[in-house]
């Protein structure tokens, strides 16, 4: 519609406000309570304008066709000034001490310190480690409450009191004791500094980069002074986070200037790690790798690349291993998280990634969430899903635990760990029985239905109930919801993949979308894995895999190998290399003599830690490229001090296949080097030449060898912003939503999988009667090397074992008592936390803290197809600690 603002014609879509319309002109209508991330409350009344002759608040007045808006009426300007004076006179002049939206408006309207009143003496809340509330500065605009409700969905805040006494409160107690999840949305939005971070320094530079925690891919602005982080704020135009972040990305940056950062290489001499110069360390690495390669051949060397490092570094690592060392023994930690996704999604649809962009979350009218605790492990995506559910989308959650989203769900299918395949098969059978399967789609775009029908005959709801514990009626209702929604979307996590039959889980889950025609169609929300680490998608995309070259070109494909080898000027090894678990067994049986580990803490994060440690001990050379002296680094022969994501140049690929730029906001500490630099130097020390000298060059070369990323370059990302792959040419916008016309399988059809449920690798018995599930918690990340070195420790300082109150009673335990948890492989001592989020007989623990080394317990059972460990099912015994 068209309207006029100060004699200027503007055009806005329906549903826009007068404020939106004014923003298309030079008019700068003042606002205090407005934030584009939330709805307009229209309470501050600073945005008064004249619309069709009436004084209105621009933010809450709908623009109408032909409306005449004036923002320059002097009488209204005087009223706005009065609004600001009325606001200012309640606040102490200290409100002017720190720049804010309020101070900017005061300056614009010439309102100085004399217009301010005194402190009201309402006091401060200093309980939170990252920010404080100064109640005297609160103007009761409610933006913080709206951010908490409308963006984060935690409902931790409220305005309290009435009339002129109104002030924000985190419920009745201290902030730290509230429901707050420390996402920082309130602090980010506060227009007066009533809620403000504790930092007092003023930033001199700001760098746009991508978060180094989890696979969501939040765009962040890093504000820096004196080569240290002042604060990190979410980018309002971040394509995935849209101005939101979580406690990790926004606040947990203190580790980067920790005194524990590694700043000098360490080389083991006489059994002890001792400081060495870079030339000494590099010479040692090169000499030993050379010796081992000469003595045992290149396949005696194996490398683990890093899902936390950039694409360019991963690209360099696999190129180093393949060309300079001459083996395909390179893998990355997607092996132990989402390898079943890569295998399963490729088999079902053709490409190794989620099918739909995050933008589709707001289109979905039903979510099927399986094995994902998104609000803790992927908080920003979790928040977006939660908001869409609050807006009215239906929610079905398949999870052994009553997670935050399970508690909100229409249906919670509280499955026994290890029963996913039976549940998904049961749902598939019901879709066919109910007639909600899409016959046309199946006929035109899928294959394998007949074989599937044969298998599904064995999964009537009653049998699924026996296997999974999910009541048959609930399963029927879930099938009905998924079957009858208009745009159903599947999101899943490690609760699907980290099983002995994780790939089968991904395949049978994908079946549901195929049967429903809900993938590769306009009404399909697809099948979307929530990837664990910041660049676990990218590490695999770059070919840090033993059987795949960059862009998922198969090592066994002679043409692909030759094509890539031609660009690299090398002949590539023909035989696929070892997967991570095979590297460990190889080390123990003498096939592997050297292990090169970049940015992974395998001694803490990989299953059956005793076994991993033994493998490390067995190697003649273990190199650890790290930012801290991790559990793995302690055991290594050479430790090379590396850089963090805040100090790096490159790109990450997030869970929805988006390439996003990573830019250095800080310089690495003296003595530390980026992984990119280190790999170049190692190659050089080995007499090799990796052919590129900058991350931009590495990306350009990757684009040359991998058709999927042919259109990706740093220059283009800097110019256009994020780009999804496939992106096949410089003018290809990338394919955010996959398979619109055909699937990428050889037949072009989506492949249904006819697979039976098989029991998990670990079974409880009388000696180990409990099933232990491992996973993550909100405040910490993975092995905790980063988050434990930040004030996140004040939020969650130690690990607890979650256990049902009935089990506590049975064991004679009280909440908080120490217990000893023992599996067939090891034991840990941990305090217990009573929660009915689990059913009796099941327990949950995270692996963030080395003093509660959860992976001493987990088993070496792996997914049959991909060797992904069965982290989600461990039989344990629990007893009071002595």
């Amino acid at each position, binding site marked *: 519609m068209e309207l006029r603002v100060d004699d200027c014609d503007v055009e806005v879509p329906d549903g826009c406000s007068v404020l939106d319309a004014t923003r298309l002109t030079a008019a700068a209508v003042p606002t205090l309570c407005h934030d584009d991330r939330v709805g307009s409350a229209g309470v501050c009344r600073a945005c008064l304008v004249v619309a069709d002759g009436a004084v209105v608040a621009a933010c809450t007045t709908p623009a109408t066709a032909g409306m005449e808006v004036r923002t320059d009426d002097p009488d209204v300007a005087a009223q706005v000034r009065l609004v600001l004076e009325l606001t200012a006179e309640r606040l102490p002049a200290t409100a002017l001490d720190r720049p804010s939206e309020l101070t900017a408006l005061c300056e614009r309207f010439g309102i100085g310190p004399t217009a301010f009143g005194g402190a009201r003496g309402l006091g401060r809340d200093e309980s939170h480690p990252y920010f404080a509330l100064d109640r005297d500065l609160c103007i009761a605009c409610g933006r913080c409450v709206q951010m908490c409700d409308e963006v984060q969905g935690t409902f931790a805040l409220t305005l309290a009191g009435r009339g002129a006494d109104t002030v924000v409160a985190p419920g009745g107690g201290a902030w730290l004791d509230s429901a707050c999840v420390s996402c920082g949305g309130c602090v980010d939005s506060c227009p007066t500094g009533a809620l403000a971070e504790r930092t007092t320094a003023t930033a001199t530079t700001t760098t746009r980069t991508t978060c180094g925690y989890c696979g969501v891919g939040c765009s962040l602005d890093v504000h820096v002074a004196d080569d240290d982080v002042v604060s990190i704020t979410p980018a309002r135009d971040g394509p995935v986070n849209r101005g939101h972040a979580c406690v990790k990305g926004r606040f947990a940056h203190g580790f980067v200037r920790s005194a524990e950062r590694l700043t000098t290489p360490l080389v083991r001499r006489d059994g002890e790690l001792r400081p060495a110069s870079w030339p000494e360390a590099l010479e040692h690495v090169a000499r030993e790798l050379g010796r081992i390669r000469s003595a045992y051949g290149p396949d005696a060397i194996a490398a683990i690349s890093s899902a936390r490092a950039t694409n360019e570094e991963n690209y360099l690592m696999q190129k180093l291993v393949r060309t300079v060392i001459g083996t395909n023994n390179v893998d990355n930690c997607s092996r132990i998280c989402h390898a079943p996704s890569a295998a399963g999604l490729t088999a079902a649809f053709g490409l190794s990634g989620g099918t739909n962009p995050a933008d589709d979350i707001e289109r979905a009218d039903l979510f099927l969430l399986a094995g994902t605790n998104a609000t803790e492990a992927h908080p920003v995506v979790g928040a977006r899903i939660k908001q869409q559910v*609050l807006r009215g989308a239906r929610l079905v959650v398949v999870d052994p635990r009553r997670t935050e989203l399970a508690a909100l769900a229409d249906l919670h299918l509280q499955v026994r760990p290890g029963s996913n395949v039976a549940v998904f098969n049961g749902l598939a059978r019901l879709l066919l029985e109910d007639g909600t399967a899409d016959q046309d789609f199946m006929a035109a775009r899928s294959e394998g239905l007949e074989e599937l029908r044969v298998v599904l005959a064995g999964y009537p709801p009653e049998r699924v109930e026996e296997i999974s514990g999910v009541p048959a009626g609930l399963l029927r209702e879930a099938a009905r919801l998924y079957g009858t929604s208009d745009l159903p979307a599947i999101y899943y996590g490690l609760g699907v993949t980290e099983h002995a039959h994780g790939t089968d889980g991904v395949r049978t889950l994908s079946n549901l979308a195929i049967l429903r025609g809900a993938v590769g169609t306009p009404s399909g929300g697809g099948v979307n894995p929530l990837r664990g680490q910041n660049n676990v998608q990218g590490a695999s995309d770059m070919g840090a895999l033993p059987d795949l070259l960059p862009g998922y070109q198969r090592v066994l494909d002679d043409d692909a190998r030759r094509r890539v080898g031609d660009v690299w000027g090398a002949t590539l090894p023909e035989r696929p290399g070892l997967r991570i678990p095979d590297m460990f067994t190889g080390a123990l049986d003498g096939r592997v003599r050297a292990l090169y580990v970049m940015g992974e803490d395998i001694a803490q994060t990989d299953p059956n830690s005793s076994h991993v440690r033994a493998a490390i001990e067995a190697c003649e050379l273990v190199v650890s490229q790290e930012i801290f002296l991790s559990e793995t680094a302690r055991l290594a022969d050479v430790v090379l001090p590396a850089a963090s994501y805040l100090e790096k140049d490159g790109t990450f690929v997030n869970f929805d296949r988006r390439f996003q730029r990573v830019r250095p906001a800080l310089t690495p500490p003296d003595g530390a080097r980026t992984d990119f630099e280190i790999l170049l130097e190692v190659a050089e020390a080995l007499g090799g030449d990796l052919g590129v000298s900058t991350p931009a060059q590495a990306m350009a070369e990757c684009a040359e060898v991998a058709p999927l990323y042919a259109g990706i370059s740093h220059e283009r990302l800097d110019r256009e912003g994020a780009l999804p792959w496939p992106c096949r040419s410089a003018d290809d916008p990338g394919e955010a939503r996959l398979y619109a016309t055909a699937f990428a399988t050889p037949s072009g059809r989506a492949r249904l999988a006819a697979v039976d449920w098989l029991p998990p690798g670990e079974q409880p018995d009388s000696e180990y009667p409990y099933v232990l599930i491992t996973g993550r918690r909100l405040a910490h990340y993975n092995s905790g090397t980063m988050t434990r070195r930040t004030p996140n420790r004040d939020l969650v300082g130690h690990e607890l074992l979650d256990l049902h109150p009935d089990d506590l009673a049975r064991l004679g335990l009280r909440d908080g008592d120490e217990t000893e948890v023992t599996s067939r492989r090891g034991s840990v001592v941990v305090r217990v936390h009573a929660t009915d989020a689990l059913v009796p007989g099941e327990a949950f623990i995270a692996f963030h803290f080395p003093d509660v080394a959860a992976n001493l317990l987990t088993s070496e059972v792996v997914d049959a197809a991909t060797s992904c460990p069965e982290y989600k099912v461990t039989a344990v015994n629990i007893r009071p600690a002595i």
Partner: protein
Amino acid sequence: MATVDARSPVEELLIRGGTLPVAAAHGARTYFADERVPRGERHVRVCTGTGCFAATGGRHVVDAEAALGVGIDRCAADGSVSLQSARCLGYCYASPAALDDDAPLAGATLLEQLVHRSERVDPPVPVAAVGPPVVLRGILGREPAWQVWPTVLTRTDGADHVLREVGIAGLRGRGGAGFATARKWAAVARTDDHGPRFVVANGDEGDPGSFADRMLMERDPGRVLEGLALAGLACGATAGYVYVRSEYPRAFATMHRAVDAARAAGHLGTDIHGSGLDFDVEVVSGHGSYVAGEETSLLRSIAGLRGTVRVRPPYPTRHGLLGRPTAVNNVETLAAVPAILADGGAAYARLGRGEETGTLVVCLNARFAKPGAYEVELGTPLRVLVEEVGGGLDGGATLRALQVGGPLGGFLAPSRLDLPLLDSSLSEAGVALGHGSLVAIDDGVSRDDLLRHLWQFGADESCGACTPCREGTRRGAADPVAVAADDALLDLMTDASLCAFGRRLPAAIRSLTAVPSWS
């Protein structure tokens, strides 16, 4: 670009069946007066409404503090007694008044009653109809409630029939806003999604000076419920709520009993009278807030949230209780509906004048010679109400100002009694009809006292959502006379406040300063 449609995720959470978040519950607790004032074993609420203020100049409050040995809005140190100010208990015809726990006391012997030195007096509302009664039909013994409902349900076009007749009647909201009732119901009925819709009876009769709704809820609750059920039918709602302010404990109890009785008689519940229609009603209590009478505030209060107002549009007909389409109607409006359907809309439309059809129950305070509630035709001259119906002032006192329509209505000088009881005419004179209360002011209070009383009311009851009202009433309470002359501030409140409270208060203040001073 953001759309102007604000969401309320906490309401979205609640309608999904989620529990009220701890913080939201805290926000509500700290908002409502009933929760803010500490409670002793004995809890006395003393009326500080305009009727009682006009009767004693506020002396009864000071006396109550002294008699009970506890300050206003305080609890005695030993916890034996607490004293809360309540802005109108609906006993303006027998001022001053108090609630001793839930027992009403009123009259000149209030102090003695409070210290048990006098019989408790709980005078009934003197009530009469000047013409043929419509709303008061049940109370005056002409026609019991629930006569229309069973017959309407036998019609296949029941909902349309109700909408049509109420439309023909020209019935408008009696709560003060005067919106056409049939249009409101049609807006809810038109909603095209399949989720729940609600109808709500607004029994938050907050205007000091009004007691008509209390009387209706206490003495003919079935008529209110029947009107609500008819509204529910017209709107396609299956659930209704009656929101009764906490200052009316007896009305709350009688409404409760009336719902039980209606269920027992088969007027409410499932498959009502074999029609296949389901409709049931819940009675909920307020917690002490004048602004809760504003519909967005009232709906948030029912949901257990803070009773602050939110911007409209969206109107409750689209985004109401828990975000669902909702029709909110004043108790008196609903009480008129059974008679409209009994007689036909045209009969009702013949009453009143022009577009302002029908009758209004006018409340006269104790300074009149004949205080009480009177159903009169709209258009009746104020002079008739003051001099004939009210019999002039008690004891021959001199009328100095006449407050019309409560604190947001305004004051008229005695020279202006020739105005008719019509919102259109009164608006032109700078006051608003409101809920139809008339409070006579005589020499017992001064104009400046009244200004102070009004500003304090504003500051105490402002919900605090928007800057002009929150800060304007604060300034007004601090310096009542000077701020009453601050045109810039009064204009800002009028132009830019979020709801009628802040927008109307300046006009009421100005109307009072326009009355010649009498002391």
